[in-house]
């Protein structure tokens, strides 16, 4: 996946992962890493931004190893934003597919 395409989708992917279940940073990165390459260091600036926009909130929960982990959870606003992003993404992909077209014809 090229860098340009990744730009806009990283935020949506993180929200989508949190839409399935609450997660901590390392968990989010490893789930992303499967499909979307990213610089791991940027996860925290990104999470802070999502927090700043009130799309996610954090809480601490016990872990098996060492001190408690910081978990991220989608807020109501986050859920709405994710739904909006998904709809936009799908209509965009449909449009691009329609233009690329020839594979289906």
């Amino acid at each position, binding site marked *: 996946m090229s*860098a*340009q395409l*990744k*730009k*806009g989708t*990283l*935020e949506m992917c993180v929200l989508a992962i949190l839409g399935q279940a609450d997660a*901590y*940073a*390392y*968990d989010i990165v*490893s789930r992303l890493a499967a499909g979307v*390459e*990213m*610089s*791991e*260091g*940027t996860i*925290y*600036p*990104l999470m*802070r*931004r999502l*927090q*700043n926009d009130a799309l996610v909130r954090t809480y601490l929960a016990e872990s098996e*190893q*060492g*001190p408690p*982990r*910081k978990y991220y959870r989608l807020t109501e606003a986050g859920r709405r934003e994710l739904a909006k992003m998904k709809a936009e993404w799908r209509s965009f992909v449909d449009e691009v597919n329609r233009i690329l077209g020839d594979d289906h014809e």
Partner: protein
Amino acid sequence: MNKDKFIARLRAEMGDLPKDQLDDVVADYEEYFRDGEANGRTQEEVSSGLGDPAKIAKELRAEMRLQQWARKKSVANFGRVVLGLMALGSLNLFLAVPTLVMMVMLMASYVISVALLIVGIVAGASFIPGVNSLVDFDGKPGKTIHVVQEKDGSRLEFTRDGKKSVTIVTSEPSKATPDKPAAEGAPKSQTSITIRTKGDPDADDDDDDDDADADGDGGPAPATGADKGDDQDFDNAVEAVFHKVDEAEGWGVVAAGGLGGGALWMLFNLWVTRLLFRGFVRYARLNYSVLRGTDA
């Protein structure tokens, strides 16, 4: 780079952040290292995956400054947002020039509104001392008004006391002493009209003194006339007094206009400033998303 080195460099690069925020950031990355190691990676692998601490610190700092700005919109925090963007190298000359022009225009607009306010205050100040010779507000304005009008030796006093009684006294100059002001010469004739609201504690000199009746009676205030003099002179004098009062009110209009206009203008300026700040924050966010993308 091992974990301790990475954290130390991150701490150094974050530098000027408040301690609790810095500790929060460090805790995040320590947790990340723990989770990485728990998944069988070495500290070196995790830190190379995370990338350059200096770059992370810049992004985090810019983001946290925006956060501070969102929480508390002060000039200092706005300055921090600008500094953060400059550190990221995303605030260039292309934007700086129009920003500067806008700032100058806004400053000029502020100066105008402040000038209007000053005009209002000056007019208000000249209104009050100017009134001293015409209208005496002793105590609170609107409560007691005392007007003295003197012209060619004739004198008219207008007193409104606490909305309860209105006294108008006119006096004509003594013909025996035409050089002296009327106030000093013994007045030849004097016209005095006192209008008092029924129930006024001072009004118990003349006729009905029935307080029980006064409480129940909501009718018009009775007038007590005395020593009716020359009607025409009296009318002229009253007109002159009210003319002077109008003049004083003219200053009041200037004062009110200056203050009101200045205040409205100031509000407009604040509104424009707010819009500009918002636009700037949007621009900042746009920059962040672009940076984050190219960073990956």
